[in-house]
Structures are given as structure tokens and as C-alpha cells.
């Protein structure tokens, strides 16, 4: 599991976007991009130029791990309810 709280918040926002109801997709995408853009702005202030796509692709494995943990937790909860 990702330990950095900022990374954790971004992964959470992406998970929420993926799981959103259709009419909430644009709203939750904007929340996710807002977090990414804050990060990019801070990087730019340190002279590091990155695009959203760079971070998104770099976080790919972190997101897989995050979603796998969430999906497993959800599946276990559903099994307990049955």
C-alpha cells in the first residue's frame, strides 16, 4: 500500500472517479485532476516539468495495488453478508 499521504489521496480520488455513478464522472474527474495539478504546480516551482500523463503512467502499479486491496476488502465484506 502506498505510504505517502498525498499519493494515497490521489489514488483514492482516482478510485472514486472509476466507481462513480455516470452523472458524477465529470465532477470526480475534476477532483482527481485538481489534486494532480496541485502536485504538478509544486514540481514546476522546483523547476521540474512534468505532464499529468507522466504521473498517471508512473502511478500505474501503485493504483493497481490500491484497487486490488480495495476490491479484496469489498469482496470479503460481501462474502460475510451472504
Amino acid at each position, binding site marked *: 500500500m502506498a505510504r*505517502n499521504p498525498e499519493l494515497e489521496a490521489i489514488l483514492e480520488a482516482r478510485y472514486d*472517479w472509476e466507481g462513480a455513478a455516470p452523472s458524477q464522472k465529470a465532477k470526480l474527474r475534476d477532483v482527481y485532476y485538481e489534486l494532480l495539478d496541485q502536485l504538478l504546480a509544486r514540481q514546476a516551482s522546483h523547476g521540474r516539468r*512534468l505532464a499529468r500523463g507522466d504521473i498517471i503512467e508512473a*502511478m500505474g*502499479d501503485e493504483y493497481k495495488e490500491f484497487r486490488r486491496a480495495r476490491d479484496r476488502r469489498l469482496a470479503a465484506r460481501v462474502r460475510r453478508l451472504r
Partner: protein
Amino acid sequence: MTAAAKPPKTKMEKPRVVMSNSHEPRWDAISCFLVGQDRGEMAGGKEANALLLYAKSYLFFHKLALFRKGETARLYLNEPDESDFMFHRALLRRLIGDGSDLVKQVKRHGMARNAEGLSLADIEATVEELQQTERQWYGKITGKRRREILQDVFDGAQP
């Protein structure tokens, strides 16, 4: 049966398109959906096209939900094999293509107002979401570049 529900007594009337937030089924939308054009041509009137595109959007989100469910089961809750990735990638591309076509059509013809509050922006956001899924699973970034970015941006946060 209420007066409103009675079929017309004389000749067949053309179904009226009602643009409202009602959940009532509409024959023009249903027939467009069942018989309809699936090759992008939009032969109906403006309102019928808008209804058809709402119906297509609704179906698109059902396909997305089914895809995510399969993805969870095959790629996240199990150890995926080569055929899982093959199907996942092909279906992902198909959904991106369908979503992109839908965006173009809705930009051109509009979409009926709907009770769910679904908009063009939601469809666009969903196409982006799917493109990110594609990059996440099938992107070309190298391990070295990935580590560099994570190190720079998150001070070395690693799983």
C-alpha cells in the same frame, strides 16, 4: 386505464417526443434503440436523435459497469493470465472507441435532458478514465523512468 394511456382510435399517430425528466418510456426512443442505426448515421429528427443518443449513452455506461466488474474479477481478485490481458485490452479499446464516437455524436446532435443528470462532460470524462486505464496497464513507461518520477514527486514513495 387512464385517458392518457388509451391508444389512438383512428389512424396511427406519430409518437410525440417529450423532452422532460419523466421516467415514462417513449416509443420513438425504444424503436430507435431496438431497430436503430448503429453505424453513426442519425436519420431521425432533432429530438429523436437526442433521445437515441441518451439511450446509447445509457447502454454505454451499462457496458462500462460490466467491463469494470469483469476487470475486478479477472485482473484484481485473481492472478490474470495472457488471455485475460488479451480480452481486457481488446474490450478496453472497444469501449474507448464507442465512447469517443458517442462524444462526437452528442456534440453534433445533443442529448435529451434526463432524470439522471447525465451530460456530455460525463461521457468525455469516462473516455478519459478508460484511456488512463489503458496507460496504466499497457503504457510504455520504463521501470527506471517510473522510479525517477515517483522519487521526484512523492519523495520516494514506493509500495
